[in-house]
Each structure stands twice: as C-alpha cells, then as structure tokens.
C-alpha cells in the first residue's frame, strides 16, 4: 500500500508541477520567449503568501485571491515596459533580459527577507488522511485541487472565450492572426500577465508544501523545462503528461536514492530523453522551416 501512497502523492504533486509549467508554456506559445524568470516569480509568489501570513495573519489558503490579480497586473506592466521591446529580436535577447529580471527578483528577496529558509505552518500543513497504510497529506490534495481548477479554468478560457481564441491563434501563427485583425500587442500583454499570474499562484501553492528561500525557484524551473520537453509545449495535455511522468519518476526514485539527489532525477530524465529521441518531441528541439 506504500506504493499506492506514493502514487497518489505523485499525482498530487504533478498537478502542482503542471500549474507551474503551464505559465512557461503559455508565455512561450504566445510570445515565443522562454521565461527564465519563471523561478523568480514562483519564489515571489511564495514569499508574498508568507509575508501576508506573518505580517497580517492573512490565511495562506486565501492568498491566491490576492496574488493572482496582482501578479496579472505586474505581468502586464512588465510586458508593456520591457518584454514588448525584445519580443521580435533574437531569442537570446529576451533570455538575457528575463535572466536579469530573475537576478533582480532573487536579490531583492535576499535583501528584504534574508536567505533564511521560510515556511508556512497552518493546521492544514500536518493534516493527513489515513486509511490503513495509505497516508495522504491534505495539503497536497488542496494544492492539487486548486491547481487543477486553475488549469481547467485556463483551458476553458482558451477554448470558449474570444480572447482565449485570439491567444491560441497568435500561438499558431502570429502574422495570420494580425491579418485577421487581432490586436497582437494587447493580447501579448494579457497572455504574459496570465502567465505571471499562474506563476504567482503556483508559488503561493508551493509555499504550503515546501520551505523556501530566495534561491527557491531554480530547481523548479529546471523541472518545468523537463516537463515541457517530455510533454511538449503545444497543449495542456502535453504539460499534464509531462508533469505526471516527472512526478512519478521522482516519487519512486525517492525510494532508492537519498533525498538530496532527488533533483538530479529531472536532469537525468532530460538527458535520457534527449539521447533517446534525438529528433525531439514535437517542434521543440528542431524548428522546421517552410512547407
């Protein structure tokens, strides 16, 4: 039954990973840039939750209600002031820009909060569901539920609303979308805002499960990347698949190797996938031009 526990736990974590990675996927899909500041925003989301809790006693479970809109606005502001200027240049430029942003976020956090590890402890943190040998922490269930809700909401937004469809058209063919009259600039800003909002949500949820410090997001960015390589950037399904694959690998890997090596798993998986599928998964590794 221990296996079942691990399995369920892994699936719950997968939901969280998917939430984190979806932001990466959305921003890349629409703006065609890789958000290296992924980690930074996750980390700030976690710190924001923690800070509201320690400073105002604000219930961390409700934090997303504040964080999501705030991060959305921050994302739009960023897009308007910085991202817009680099969107059409070589990918290296946006990469370096966002790397710089990450550095700034990380070190502002160091200055404001110091490098001490923080964590959030509320009654939910230790509550578990226990039946026989199966142990499932309620916190993980909560995180999974909220994460999945968010993703379903995103998916509905993308498929059922006009704005969502505009986003998807730009992701498919930016020039064609422009020709049909879609205001690409405006949609870019919204997509970026949504991506950042998802990261804030992810970070907030993460703060319920893990302790963190300003260096927090880095390993997670790597995992997001691994997920995206495994599952493909093209769709929610791809991200979900990649998340589950990674979460399972990690959960079962934990049984055979020391915890400190756990993060190596995502990297090893990445290398294995790259070597086993040299032609790549989907259009991610090779950009084929033309007909």
């Amino acid at each position, binding site marked *: 039954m221990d296996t079942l526990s691990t399995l369920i736990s892994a699936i719950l974590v997968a939901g969280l990973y998917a939430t984190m990675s979806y932001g990466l996927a959305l921003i890349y899909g629409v703006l065609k*840039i*890789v958000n*290296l500041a992924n980690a930074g925003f996750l980390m700030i989301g976690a710190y924001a939750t923690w800070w509201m809790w320690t400073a105002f006693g604000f219930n961390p479970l409700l934090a997303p209600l504040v964080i999501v809109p705030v991060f959305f606005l921050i994302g739009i502001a960023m897009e308007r002031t*910085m991202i817009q*200027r*680099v969107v059409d240049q*070589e*990918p*290296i*430029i*946006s*990469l*370096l*820009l966002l*790397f*710089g*942003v*990450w*550095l*700034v*976020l*990380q*070190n*502002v956090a*160091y*200055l404001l909060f110091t490098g001490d590890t923080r964590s959030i402890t509320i009654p939910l943190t230790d509550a578990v569901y226990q039946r026989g040998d199966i142990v499932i922490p309620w916190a993980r269930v909560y995180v999974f539920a909220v994460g999945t809700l968010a993703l379903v909401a995103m998916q509905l937004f993308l498929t059922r609303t006009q704005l969502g469809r505009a986003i998807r058209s730009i992701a498919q063919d930016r020039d064609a979308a422009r020709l049909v009259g879609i205001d690409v600039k405006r949609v870019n800003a919204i997509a970026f805002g949504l991506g950042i909002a998802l990261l804030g949500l992810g970070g907030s949820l993460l703060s319920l499960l893990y302790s963190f410090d300003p*260096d927090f997001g*880095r*390993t997670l*960015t*790597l995992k997001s*990347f*691994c997920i995206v*390589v495994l599952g493909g950037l093209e769709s929610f399904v791809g991200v979900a698949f990649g998340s589950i694959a990674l979460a399972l690998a990690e959960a079962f890997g934990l049984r055979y190797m*020391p915890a*400190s*090596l756990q*993060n*190596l798993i*995502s*990297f*090893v998986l*990445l*290398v294995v996938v*790259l*070597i086993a599928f*040299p032609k*790549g998964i989907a259009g*991610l*590794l*090779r*950009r084929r*031009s033309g007909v």
Partner: protein
Amino acid sequence: MSRVQVAGPLIAAAALLCAVAVPFAFPHAEYVLDVLFLIFLYGAMSAAWNIIGGFAGQISFGHAAFLGVGAYATMILWGEGWSPWATLPVAGGLAAIFSILVGVPSFRLRGPYFSIATIGIGEATRLVALNWSKLTGGASGLTMAAGPPPQIQYLSALAVCVAAFGISWWIVQSRFGFALAAIKQDTDAAQTLGVDTTLFKTLALALSAALVGIAGSIYAMHYLYVSPDSVFGFSTAIALVIMPIIGGVGTVWGPLIGAVVYTFIREQFAVKLANADLLAFGLLLVAIVLFEPKGIVGAWGSVMARRAFRKRAAGVAARG
C-alpha cells in the same frame, strides 16, 4: 559581429609589459596585486565564456561546472602530493572532456533551450559534488594549508588571461571564428553551406571549458578552499555570464572590460551589503539588454559610429 577592430598590437604589448612588471616594481603592494590578480583571472574566465557564448552564440549558464571541475581536480591531486602546477593541464583536460560529454547531447537543443539545459548541467554537477563526499569532501569541501606566493599567482593569472585573449584574438581572424560567427547568426544556413555545426560548437565549448578549468585551478590555488557552493554555485555561473555581457559579448576585449567592471562593483558593493552586487548586476543586465545589447564596447562603438556618420554627413552636405 563579423570583424572587430583590434587595438594596435603596440598598445597591447606595452600594456602587457607593464602588467608583468607590477609585482617586481611594487613587491609589497598586496592590495593592488590582489585586485589585478582578480581582474586577470576573471578576465580569463570571461574571455573563455565568450568563445562559446559570444562568438558561437550559445549562451551557457552552467559554465561554473567547468570552473569547478578544474578547481576540484587541482585540489584533489594537490592533496595527493602533486605539484599544483602539474595539475593545470589535467584540470583543463578534464574540464574539456566533461564539456564534450555534456555538450554533445545538449547541442541538439536550440538557443534558449540549450541555455536552460546548461542551468541543469551546472546544478547537476553541484549536486554530484555535494554527494560524492569520498572524492570531493562533500559539503565541507577541500582545503590546502598554503599555496604559491602572491607574485607567482599574479603571473599565472596574467598568463592565463593573455592566453585566453590571445586565443580570442586569433579566433576572430581565423576560419574557426568564421564558422562560429556563421553558426551564431544562422545555424541552419551555415549547415547547408558546409559547416559541421555540431563539431564546431563542441570544439568551441571544449576550448572554452579547458580555459575556464585552468582558471579554476588558479582560483583553487588562490583561495585554498573549494566547496560545491563556492565553485559550482549559481553566483559563480552568473558572474561568468554577466562579465562578458556588460563588457560586450562577442567582441574580443569586451570580456576584459566586463571583468574590470565586475571586480569593481563587487569590491564596492559586496562589502557593504551582501547580494547588493548581484542585484546591481541584475539591473545592469536588464538595462544593457534593453538599451545597449552590445555592452560597453557596443556603446563605445555606437558613439564612434555616430561621430563617423556625422562627419560623413557633413562632408556630403559640404559637397552637395
């Protein structure tokens, strides 16, 4: 970034002569020696990164891995009784071999994805060093009691620096450099014109790693202490990227200018407030990307170009 105007060889030779003379002219100016040592060492590392990141356009955020391999190789062998200088070629060689092992699969990835993979490489190397305690001493790292005298260290840093920049200068004029430039500007087109892009990228990476590995050796000899966080840490990796970009990525001398700026900022900020220097670098990076992607060298170039343009325009106006 096809051709770079190189400062007159005379100026370079004169500067080199002065640099070599310093420890003999001022044998007790410890602080000056130390600062110059750092500038030369960082300059070497920065130039080394620039070979793969600037010339070939493959931005690596994991170069700390190669630095660390070199540093650890030296520390370990030194501890076994080797002369530290004898470990230099081993350090460089191991770093190069390691870079080939991780580079070849990673080069299947394009642009930003390659860069992200390098983050993974850096992180994975750090984790391995952390856990392979028998070899690396784990989290506590390795130490040595005493190293070479500061004057010798200074000269060795200068030597690596000269080597790194000499190689960079050669590359820019060589067939090899042409291949890297083509790869950087349009990998697919380069491939169809006969450039074996994977081979050249791997060569550039191996060369870069070897130089950084040797710099890592000298680093170890200077600080007499290596640990997973100090050499494989992300702040080291960041430094290796920041310096060439500030100075002028893809140019020959940009990395040196970047090393000077980096050393200066670190000395000024890190002492006062931890992490303030990294914050400054982050802001600097954002500013550079948004306003002058070619760094300080680029800004200088723009100023020069505008002057030349104005002169030409004035000439045309006069004639017309």
